[in-house]
C-alpha cells in the first residue's frame, strides 16, 4: 500500500499545491473541481519527474510556515526602508557594496530559496553564485557595515533554511 501510494504520488506536497492552485484558478470549491485538481496533481509531477531526479530528502512544513512569516514581515519592513532610501538619500551619498556570503547549504533547492529571499528583502539583491556553489554574491543598496549585513543573512535566513532542509 505504502509503495503503491509512493508510486502514484512521488511528491505529495507538490500534488497538494497543484490541487490548491487549480481550485484558486477555477474560483470555486466543488467536489468535481477537487477531484480534477487532484488528477492534475498526480499527472503533472509524474510527467515532469524526469527533469528533477534529486528531490530534497526532507522538508519540514512547520518550520517553512514560520520562515514564510518572518520573510513576509521582512519584505514589508524592507520596502519601507528602501522607499525611504530612494526618496531621501541622494545618489552621490549612496554606499552600495558587494558582499560575499559563504554558504553552508548544499541542496540547489535550498540555495535557490535563500537567493530568492535575499532578493526580496532589505536592500539586497543576490547576483551570482560561485562556480563550486559555496558562496553567494550579494549586492547591497546602502550600508555602512557590509559585515553586519552578511551576518544578518546567515543568522536570519540561512540558519532557518538549514533547519527546513535538515
Amino acid at each position: 500500500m505504502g509503495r503503491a501510494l509512493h508510486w502514484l504520488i512521488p511528491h505529495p506536497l507538490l500534488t497538494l499545491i497543484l490541487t490548491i492552485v487549480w481550485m484558486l484558478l477555477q474560483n470555486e470549491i466543488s467536489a468535481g473541481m477537487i477531484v480534477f485538481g487532484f488528477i492534475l496533481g498526480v499527472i503533472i509531477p509524474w510527467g515532469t519527474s524526469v527533469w528533477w531526479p534529486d528531490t530534497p530528502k526532507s522538508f519540514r512544513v512547520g518550520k517553512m510556515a514560520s520562515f514564510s512569516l518572518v520573510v513576509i514581515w521582512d519584505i514589508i519592513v524592507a520596502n519601507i526602508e528602501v522607499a525611504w532610501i530612494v526618496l531621501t538619500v541622494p545618489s552621490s551619498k549612496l554606499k552600495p557594496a558587494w558582499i560575499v556570503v559563504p554558504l553552508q547549504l548544499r541542496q540547489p533547492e535550498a540555495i535557490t530559496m535563500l537567493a530568492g529571499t535575499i532578493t526580496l528583502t532589505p536592500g539586497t539583491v543576490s547576483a551570482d553564485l560561485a562556480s563550486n556553489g559555496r558562496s553567494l554574491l550579494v549586492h547591497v543598496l546602502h550600508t555602512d557595515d557590509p559585515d553586519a549585513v552578511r551576518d544578518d543573512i546567515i543568522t536570519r535566513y540561512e540558519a532557518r533554511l538549514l533547519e527546513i532542509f535538515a
Partner: protein
Amino acid sequence: MTAQIIGTYFVCLSLIIGSGFVLVGAIGLLKFNDPMTRLHAPTKVGTVGIGMLLIASIIHSFDIGQPSTHELLIMAFLFVTAPISANFIGKVNIHCKACDTPPPPADGDTWSTLDVPDQESER
C-alpha cells in the same frame, strides 16, 4: 456604516499605498545612476506595490459579492519570478563589466558568471 462602505475604504487605502510604492519604484529607477543600484528599486518596491494593488482587487471582488482568488496566484507567481529576473539582470551587469567587479569568493574560486573559457583556447 455597512460592511460594504468599510470595504470601499480599505480598497481606497490599499490602492493609495500600492500606487505610492510603485511610484517610488519608478523614481528609484530614474534617480540612481548605477545599473546595480537601479536594480533595487523595482525588484522590491515593485512587488509590494503590485501586491497592495492586488489586495485592493481581492477586497473589491468580495465587496461586490463576486469573490475572486486569482490575485493570490498572481502574487505567488510574482514573488517567485521577480528574484529570478533580478538575478539575470545582475549577472548580465557583471558579465558586461557594467558595474564594479565584485570581490572573489572566499575559497579562491571564481563567480560562475566570470568563469568563462579563454577566448584563445576556444579558437
